[in-house]
């Protein structure tokens, strides 16, 4: 199986899982005793947060460390980190939006200065800064090295986001699955739907990562080709004059 086929199949399977999750979440699972239909956001919001905070920024941090390590240094690591941050920022913003939609009827406000919300918003801004740094024209090696350092420092916020609900006991509820006792507080069809949402969004993340990585390779090749053709044109100008 080629990389292109793999990317396609990851996309198809992830899309199927997402459709099944929507069907289970909206029609099969029952409403919650206390929250009613609002609970259905639990089949989107935690999975989005999982991809954004742990998966995307985790991959970005690991690849950045591997880039800085001389033995494993390669542009592949840099491109994976950059692709992962791009997808992670999208998922973080979606996490904040879905959380806000849930917060309005539950807490009565679209936004509150809760420790988890604040630290997540900060994380989003830190990685937007990473993307801004990446867009500044500079030598590819210098850019990769500086971006790797920015990603590692920003990733320090991830454990703060995770443990914020434990350390500060604020408005945001504690973890449903990854709580300190590792005892999930959700059961039956609701738990299976939640699990499916994690798998579906993980698949979507992998698909987006693969697509964005391929685009980064093509972009870099385009820059190299552009330079090469400009040099050929310049040489041709020189020889004709």
């Amino acid at each position, binding site marked *: 199986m080629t990389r292109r086929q793999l990317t396609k199949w990851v996309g198809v399977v992830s899309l199927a899982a997402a459709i099944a999750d929507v069907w289970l979440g909206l029609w099969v699972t029952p409403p919650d005793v206390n929250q009613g239909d609002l609970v259905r956001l639990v089949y989107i919001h935690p999975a989005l947060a999982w991809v954004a905070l742990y998966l995307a920024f985790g991959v970005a941090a690991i690849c950045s460390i591997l880039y*800085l390590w001389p033995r494993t240094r390669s542009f592949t690591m840099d491109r994976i980190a950059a692709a992962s941050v791009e997808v992670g920022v999208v998922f973080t913003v979606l996490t904040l939006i879905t959380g806000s939609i849930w917060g309005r009827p539950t807490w009565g406000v679209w936004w509150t200065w809760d420790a988890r919300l604040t630290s997540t918003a*900060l994380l989003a*801004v*830190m990685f*937007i*800064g*990473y993307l*801004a*740094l990446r867009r*500044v*024209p*500079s030598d590819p090696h210098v850019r990769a*090295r*500086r971006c*790797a*350092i*920015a990603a*590692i*420092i*920003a990733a*320090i916020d991830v454990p*703060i986001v995770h443990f914020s609900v434990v350390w500060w006991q604020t408005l945001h509820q504690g973890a449903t699955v990854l709580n300190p006792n590792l005892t999930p507080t959700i059961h039956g069809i609701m738990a299976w739907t939640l699990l499916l949402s994690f798998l579906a969004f993980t698949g979507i993340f992998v698909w987006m990562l693969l697509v964005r990585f391929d685009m980064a390779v093509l972009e870099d090749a385009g820059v190299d080709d552009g330079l090469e053709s400009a040099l050929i044109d310049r040489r041709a100008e020189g020889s004709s004059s």
Partner: protein
Amino acid sequence: MLRDARLIAARDLRIEMRSKVATWQVLPFAFLSLILFAFAIGPDPTLLKQTSPGLFWLSLLFASVLGTQRSLSIEGDGATREATRLLGIDPAGIFLGKTIALLIELAALEIVLLGGVLVFFHTQVSNWPLLISSLILAPIGLASASVIYGSVTTGLRSTATLLPLLVLPVLAPLLIAGARCFSVATGSRGNSAEWLGILAVFAGIYVLLGIVLYGPLEES
């Protein structure tokens, strides 16, 4: 490493003593921002007293960005970065030296801003040891993170706009913890030990990261 740090810190401070950029530009800017915040809030003494911890720290943070840009422009001038590397100075020593120099400049900023807050915002300090501890710990983290990100953006076309975007979110935990310590030191209730702990942890993390990561940053 410590010898190199001392050399770099002495060099940066000597340049500052001669050029007086921090004295005539950064310090007045910090003071001006404090005054402007007061204009925006209004003359209500109770409100000014309540908001003084946040305003003190915001003014310090904004001024520190200017101070960092100045500190890192020394490295960007001519081929100072390359020349320093050719001298065989340990990158960790360069990081520590620049951090120490910035720390001393931040201490001067803190003294001016604290004077401004006490006089213009009618703030009364009830717990000096707590306030002084936070004013020592927070700038260590502030200076370390600023030097790392300052180096990350040195030599780029849009350093002036990129540095605040990158460094201010990283400094937010220090802003929160520093402002809480200031509040408690000026009479509010709160767990000062917890906030001092946060300041100490972040200071430690940023210093450690700087020592480890400054080497790869300085590679050619």
